[in-house]
């Protein structure tokens, strides 16, 4: 299965996301920010990093890139899209997901092994988890505090759109300890911690992050 991995100028975790797709049994396909061709991929990952230097606002410029002009309508038509960290910020800026990510409450960049609890196992990217499963994966960001208005938060909760929550101390001040959310259709997922850095216990805190990628690849083989 072909899974696209987008590289914007300033993207950092594209190689890692491609590796995760490979570990999951998929075929990673590199997508360039300046192109509009999605190359027949069955899913797209927007990796972590600092697209366009995070100038203006995280993800604000990436949202207007040529590749996003193809991804946004495709996602609206059901193409599975996973935004990790900066990718999550791009999805919010693109209005594919509600809300916004703001500066961590501690005002520092934070890189730590974070326990999260999987809340929704119905999305295109979380089917391989069991509900309530707790996994530890790296969290690394400066602007990871998920914020939205009360009405949106209520909808997210009522529609089971929360993908995962932080366990223990809320590391960045996200509302309802939200670590990741999905759209109503369940094809677009944004997550702040980094599952692509937890695909092998040798180089990450666990291999539990791999299930995000196998969820997509296995379901569609």
């Amino acid at each position: 299965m072909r899974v696209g991995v987008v590289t914007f100028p300033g993207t950092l975790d594209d190689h890692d996301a491609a590796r995760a797709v490979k570990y999951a049994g998929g075929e990673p396909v590199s997508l360039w920010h300046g192109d509009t061709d999605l190359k027949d991929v069955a899913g797209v990952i927007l990796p972590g990093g600092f697209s366009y230097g995070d100038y203006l606002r995280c993800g604000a410029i990436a949202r207007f890139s040529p590749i996003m002009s193809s991804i946004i309508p495709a996602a609206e038509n059901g193409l599975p899209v996973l935004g990790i960290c900066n990718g999550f910020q791009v999805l919010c800026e693109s209005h594919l997901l509600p809300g916004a990510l703001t500066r961590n409450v501690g005002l520092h960049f934070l890189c730590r092994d974070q326990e999260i609890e999987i809340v929704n196992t119905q999305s295109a990217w979380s089917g391989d988890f069991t509900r309530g499963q707790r996994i530890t994966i790296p969290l690394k960001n400066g602007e990871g505090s998920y914020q939205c208005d009360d009405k949106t938060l209520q909808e997210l909760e009522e529609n089971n759109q929360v993908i995962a929550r932080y366990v223990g101390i809320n590391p960045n001040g996200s509302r309802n300890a939200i670590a990741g959310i999905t759209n109503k259709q369940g094809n677009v997922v944004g997550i702040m911690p980094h599952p692509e850095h937890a695909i092998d216990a040798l180089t990450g805190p666990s291999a539990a992050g791999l299930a995000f990628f196998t969820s997509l690849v296995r379901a569609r083989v």
Partner: protein
Amino acid sequence: MALDTVGIATNSPDTQQPWRELGLKEDEYQRIREILNRRPTSSELAMYSVMWSEHCSYKSSKVHLRQFGEKAPKSDALLVGIGENAGVVDVGQGYAVTFKVESHNHPSFIEPYQGAATGVGGIVRDILTMGARPVAILDPLRFGPADAPDTKRVLPGVIAGIGGYGNCIGVPTVGGEVIFDKSYLGNPLVNALCVGVMKHEDIKLAKASGAGNLVVLFGAKTGGDGIGGVSVLASETFSEKKPTKRPAVQVGDPFTEKVLIECSLEIFKEDLVVGIQDLGGAGLSCATSELASAGTGGMRIELDRVPLRDANLSPEEILMSESQERMCAIVPPAKIDRFLEICEKWDVVATVIGEVTSGEHLEITWHGELIVDVPPRTVAHDGPVYNRPYKRPENQGDLCADAAENLPRPSSEAELAETILKIISSPNMADKTWITEQYDKYVQGNTVAAGPSDAAVIRIDEESFLGVAVATDCNGRFCKLDPYQGTQLALAEAFRNVAVTGAKPLAITNCLNFGSPEDPGVMWQFAESVRALADGALEMGLPVTGGNVSFYNQTGDVAIVPTPVIGILGVIDDVRKAISYKFTGAKELILLGETLEELSGGEWADGCGHLGGVPPRVNLQKEIVLADFIHAQRDYIAAAHDLSDGGLAVALIEMLLQSKTGATVSIHGDPFMHLFSESSGRILIAVSSEDSNYVVGKAADAGITTTRLGKSGGENLEISGVLSLSMLHLQEANQRTIPALFNA
């Protein structure tokens, strides 16, 4: 100011020039006049002044640094040695690794965030310039007392700067040191080490050869930042009277650097350059003169073609600007189109600014007028060389006579427990998670071990699991007491930190941070330190692949404690076998090496406010035996931890805290001495009970002294008949200090 051309200079020999303001001495200025057979133009003066500064020319250190070449051990691993941007070693399977450490001390004191950020940016470009992908950053840092108001200004800024830059360029920050000492209060040390990986055939050199080849400047546009940074900032002691020099610190843009890295690697992959140099200290002056002198000498540059951020810059300022994120490449005309195409893909500004000529001079024009006409070697390499006087300070004898071994010691259970808690919570020994959490250690996905590990372990091949281990070390107090022994202790410790992972140490780099070379006492420290490192490298059979000298680290007459930071790179054939100091399950704890009564210069003495005596003995042969032993027995060793600052007490507690367990251990003899001695050549290992007899036997065969300390387990650290402390209590003491000091 009117343009000063070569023609004007020739006809106006008596024009007064600001050589003194640019940091040159009178005899240096006269030498420039002799070389050129006329007065220099103002642009030439700018170039000579920055290139002949202490920072660029190594004029005070050169006569000593030669020993690294003269005493160099025979090494098959060395592919590129001292003199290039960074040394390169062969790590097998066709891979080459380059690593180097540099200082950015003075800028980081003035402007902590930008100083530290551009320090990272600069060393990363040095590594990139060799043709390598930068894969890891380590930051050896030294600050004034942790509770000093200025440390609260400097440290958070430096940490945020390192993170802010390193995190944005996608290179993991995986180790380093954070050490506090009062001597660093007015002179914090911000050193940055970068490791890069490439295939042998991809190694690039800074050389402009082939007449007709084009000189291309690519990356950020040139602005007015950092002008004179090298000559004014790095070569002058801070004094309280002078006005602040803030504008001389460069400002970094990590996004531009990230794009520049990817763009350059793509250019290298297609083999489009014959030589390349990054623009760091001394900017274009350095890049053009070094590239030209490494080639046949001839180069012509049209300086007015340099893209500017500030159109009002004069040619002198353009030559001196230290604007960040710039590279200079030598490109054959047949490959220039493809080169520019790749730059365009990455939105990197690239401009042909000149060409290599068949002549022997570096000629620079400004709108057609010749403003520089110099033999480039005289700028880049034939700077002044000083044989500065050096002399052991007169009070050194008194200092060494005042041994910490004579201080009153804690003896009762309560006193010993209190001493342990005090050391484990001291800023130097306290948990540094508050700092390391601000660094992205995961990016690139190859981090097998990162701080607080003894060494960082990075995978370099995903199929074969080949990897490298890197560590940096230096105890400046030891070096103050005896710079020769102190430097060899730093070498031994860095070596041991790499060895405990099971890696084989392969090469040495260094960053020699000292006070003013004009002080004979400081120069003596420096001379002793370099001699020690060259001797030690020879004895251990490890090449010194490069290094950096930072002088003038002092406030007024008071120099920092000498701080020769030593970096060791090791190779590990299979990173899956790398040993950490964390273990699981019940294990037997065994101490390798001998404990002697050596307390001077150590953490306990420092906690008493004492600095005197002689540092621990060092035996490099024993370090080699230990390293070989760990490597050979790595399948039987569950965890291993180097003993250094704080001795057995700190190493044991760190290992237990990492492994989330207590232990019951017995100490035969004076418990205080065994807990706090900082004898070198010691490693704490954890071994399964069923393997312990075997491992102890093998150690005895190798001639290594072993002490079976006891077993892990329980929730307390029990030292039989001496004391008992709850691990929870120790953990709390260890973890609270740094956040309490630095959380805004």
